[in-house]
């Protein structure tokens, strides 16, 4: 057997900006996404969805659809028999979470526009949609509630009559003494900060192909966690999980919305069993907007106290969290993430965060890029700049005064979590090497004299990643009903080629490449010889998937450990064959060689040959060369950084132009710096999108106004600038790679930087605070109001942020407590 040619070695593959291994197929149109999968005999599924936000289902007439050409079956909620409802995985000890039963198809009532009511299966993709229009559902409308604050009023219609309240739960985290915080404060600033509902909106819609045959189920699925989906399907169909295979092939972006377990994949599997055919369902974009989870949607009542010198004495936030009508996998848990990072980069002795979940007649919210942390950064970084304005203090000086100092790490903050490592002064200092603030302020003055309103905003952010220590987040800790380790197998083949199996399931992160770099260094080969396999429950070990920026910090570390175990065995084999002691074997230049005698060595291929043709192995050693690791971290990881955004605001129209965006991020040592930059670019634009353009908007009747990409404005290339990115590297002590995670960082950081920049720009016009989305209309209206004229502000429209009327004029004028808040 021929052995694999060894490519020239670089000293280390980790740290190289190497091109991605996954790209050649994707740039030539040869990627394989779920909608590309075709099976013989495959039927298509169309879903009949509710046009009503809240209604009793009086009757469903399926006869017309059943007799339509090519239709093999039409089914309603009454037809679907499952062993269990759709899962929600959070059961926090000591907190009651009111949890409605969530079914793939509605039974009796519908509670949001887009809720699935019936399915039509047939041979033609267009034909099933025609037939779906022949399903006649008679609805008896019920009262609708869409405003989460109105939903908490005693007179509000109930989303779930049987639950008896629209408040889902209340969850609090805190530390210190809030009374002391306010007593010690010379100044208290309050704001009502709206973090509006958004869509994850990957460009690939959701899709599945389910094939039930021979008592086994195979599902191709657009998912970020195939192993979990397999477990859920096993529960619903009363099968052991070994009879089910879930495959996530190339997945066209996730951003969190492909984490949950959705009804459609259950229905496709059910129909495949029922009809004896493979079933494909591909979401339309309109279905995506109405029936795939949304993100954010918090109204944050924020209060911060400080001494005259800027020392922050306390921070409190009560978040009214609009969860929609039903839960998906983690719906009520997501606001907890806001609480975990409520201290931001700051040493704040007294902290309190309360999440109040609310049912409304909308689609569920759940994790979208950042999942609770963008909300935290936004509220903390906006209130810090509001406080600075109130104090008449430079906002960076205020930040520096309160930053957790470098020497305090690992640093326990008042809510009881321990930040692993950090250098917040360092990242801000580095940011300011790129942004000359004094020069900017001079330029700003000059431009204002010409009627150009330019502003700068900062966001010194941190986040929690690397989910996570199972003992902390598991059933008896935070209350997630799972463990959160990751698994990996490194298998050296006879030829010396390597297959690395990971339990993660990437969808654009480039893990085929970065994982190959990690493994190549550790076993002594080149990344092109390492095939990374993931996303298929039929090949790899159990894993928890890709989300929460965890794949590298947990999945990558797991692979690194397996690779080190392989290298250790390889050293023992080489030592035996080279007649040296194992401790005298070192791996250099791709060879296992005897220290001091670099010419006397074996390549990985030669070692593998010896391991698989075991005629001369050390006494008692098993043949073969592969190792498995299940890695459960000891702590989360805590990335951080500092971003600056410069905008121009047209005072006549309210239009915002992002002029410059500069970031310094720290996710630990780089495995592949090119991939880090790419994640930051995309993440920042995601946050700019929320800050300026994107908004999921329901009208008062619960109708979704932003049901397509015509109405839901994703940023385009023409809307954003080039980015200036830089990094610092502060290793995490939690894992051997020192890595922290970067997939969500840009999004977590950027909405606050943009918002602060816009407020800085329009402050001379008398506008002291603005909520997102910072649409032309909302900014223009705020400017007019500050001028003393009363603009006619109607509904801002789907892409328009609603100017909330608070905070114009001097800072500190607006807020209220949630109990006083009432309707916005």
């Amino acid at each position: 057997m021929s052995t694999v040619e060894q490519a020239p070695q670089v000293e280390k593959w980790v740290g190289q900006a190497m091109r991605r291994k996954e790209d050649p197929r994707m740039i030539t149109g040869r990627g394989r996404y779920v909608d590309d999968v075709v099976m013989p005999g495959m039927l298509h599924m169309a879903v009949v969805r509710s046009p009503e936000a809240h209604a009793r289902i009086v009757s469903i007439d399926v006869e017309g659809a059943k007799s339509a050409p090519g239709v093999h079956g039409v089914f309603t909620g009454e037809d679907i028999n499952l062993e269990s409802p759709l899962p929600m995985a959070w059961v926090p000890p000591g907190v009651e979470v009111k949890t409605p039963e969530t079914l793939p198809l509605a039974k009796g009532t519908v509670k949001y526009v887009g809720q699935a009511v019936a399915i039509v299966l047939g041979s033609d993709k267009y034909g099933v949609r025609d037939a779906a229009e022949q399903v006649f559902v008679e609805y008896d409308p019920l009262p609708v509630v869409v405003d989460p604050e109105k939903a908490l009023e005693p007179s509000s219609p109930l989303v779930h009559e049987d639950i008896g309240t629209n408040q889902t739960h209340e969850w609090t985290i805190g530390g210190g003494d809030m009374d002391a915080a306010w007593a010690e404060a010379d100044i208290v600033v309050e704001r009502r900060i709206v973090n509006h509902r958004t869509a994850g909106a990957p460009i690939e819609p959701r899709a599945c192909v389910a094939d039930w045959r021979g008592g086994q189920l195979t599902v191709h699925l657009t998912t970020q966690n195939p192993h979990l989906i397999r477990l859920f399907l096993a529960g619903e169909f009363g099968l052991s999980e070994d009879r089910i295979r879930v495959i996530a092939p190339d997945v066209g972006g996730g951003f969190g919305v492909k984490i949950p377990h959705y009804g459609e994949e259950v229905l496709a599997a059910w129909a495949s069993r029922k009809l004896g055919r493979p079933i494909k369902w591909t979401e339309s974009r309109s279905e995506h907007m109405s029936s795939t989870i949304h993100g954010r949607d918090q109204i944050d009542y924020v209060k911060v106290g400080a001494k005259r010198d800027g020392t922050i004495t306390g921070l409190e936030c009560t978040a009214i969290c609009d969860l929609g009508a039903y839960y998906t996998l983690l719906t009520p848990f997501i606001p907890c993430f806001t609480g975990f990072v409520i201290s931001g980069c700051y040493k704040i002795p007294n902290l309190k965060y309360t999440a109040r979940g609310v049912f409304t007649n909308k689609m569920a919210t759940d994790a979208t890029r950042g999942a609770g942390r963008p909300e935290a950064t936004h509220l903390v970084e906006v209130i810090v700049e509001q406080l600075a304005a109130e104090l008449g203090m430079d906002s960076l000086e205020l930040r520096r005064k309160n930053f957790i100092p470098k020497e305090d790490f690992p640093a326990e903050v008042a809510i009881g979590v321990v930040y692993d490592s950090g250098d917040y002064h360092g990242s801000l200092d580095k940011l300011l090497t790129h942004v000359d603030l004094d020069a900017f302020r001079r330029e700003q003055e000059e431009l204002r004299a010409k009627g150009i309103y330019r502003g700068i905003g900062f966001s010194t952010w941190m986040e929690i990643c690397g989910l996570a220590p199972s003992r902390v987040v598991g059933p008896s800790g935070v209350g997630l009903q799972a463990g959160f380790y990751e698994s990996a197998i490194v298998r050296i083949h006879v030829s010396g080629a390597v297959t690395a199996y990971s339990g993660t399931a990437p969808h654009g992160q480039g893990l085929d490449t970065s994982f190959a770099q990690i493994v190549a260094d550790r076993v002594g080969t080149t990344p092109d010889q390492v095939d990374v396999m993931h996303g298929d429950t039929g090949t790899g070990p159990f894993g928890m998937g890709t989300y929460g920026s965890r794949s590298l910090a947990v999945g990558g570390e797991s692979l690194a450990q397996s690779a080190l175990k392989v290298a250790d065995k390889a050293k023992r084999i080489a030592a035996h064959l080279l007649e040296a002691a194992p401790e005298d074997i070192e791996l250099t230049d791709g060879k296992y060689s005897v220290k001091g005698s670099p010419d006397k060595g074996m390549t990985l291929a030669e070692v593998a040959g010896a391991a698989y043709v075991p005629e001369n192995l050390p006494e008692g050693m098993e043949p073969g060369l592969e190792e498995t690791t299940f890695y459960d971290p000891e702590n989360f990881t805590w990335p951080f950084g500092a971003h600056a955004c410069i905008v121009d605001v047209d005072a006549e129209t309210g239009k915002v132009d992002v002029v410059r965006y500069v970031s310094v991020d720290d996710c630990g040592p780089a495995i592949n710096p090119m991939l880090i930059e790419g994640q930051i670019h995309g993440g920042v634009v995601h946050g700019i999108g929320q800050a300026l353009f994107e908004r999921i908007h329901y009208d008062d009747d619960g109708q979704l106004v932003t049901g397509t990409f015509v109405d839901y404005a994703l940023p385009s290339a023409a809307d954003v600038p080039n980015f200036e990115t830089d990094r610092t590297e502060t290793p995490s002590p939690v894992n051997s790679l020192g890595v922290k995670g970067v997939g969500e960082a840009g999004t977590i950081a950027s909405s606050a930087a943009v918002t602060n920049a816009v407020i800085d720009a329009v402050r001379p016009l008398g506008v002291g605070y603005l909520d997102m989305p910072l649409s032309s209309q909302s900014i223009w209206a705020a400017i007019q109001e500050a001028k003393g004229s009363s603009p006619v502000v109607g509904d801002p429209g789907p892409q328009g942020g609603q100017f909330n009327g608070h905070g114009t004029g001097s800072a500190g004028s607006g807020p209220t407590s949630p109990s006083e808040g009432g309707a916005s």
Partner: protein
Amino acid sequence: MARVSLTVNGVQYTEEVEPRLLLVHLIRDKLGLTGTHVGCDTSNCGACTLHLDGQAVKSCTVLAVQADGSEVTTIEGIGTEDDLHPLQEAFWKHHGLQCGYCTPGMIMAGADLLSHNADPSEEDVREALAGNLCRCTGYHNIVKAVLDAAQASKGVPA
């Protein structure tokens, strides 16, 4: 049913189709060229961009019958793994893709730009790609890739 004859990536096809069949579904479902993707159904995202008689079009808003007698080029027709188009090479080199779903449409839109503007400015590129949405890259590296491909293509006959 209607008969459609067209050339796709140099291969002649004749298909019987429903008059309402979209060109993107002819390409994907009947001809099996799955590199052209569908992302939005409303011609906002541009994932379905291909070339129809030398012009970039969004094939989710073109009927297959409208392509009768036409020459179509898809992502599969402009280069292969062994012989990459300069734009494909540049997207790879500059990390102009992450999940890869918008990439074929982006490359086809970029190729359309370069076919009538061999030396675009950054602003030209951003405007030309404004009808193609990407959720992963933030566009920075896509723009860099198109600009680099323009330079690399100079002197290369079209």
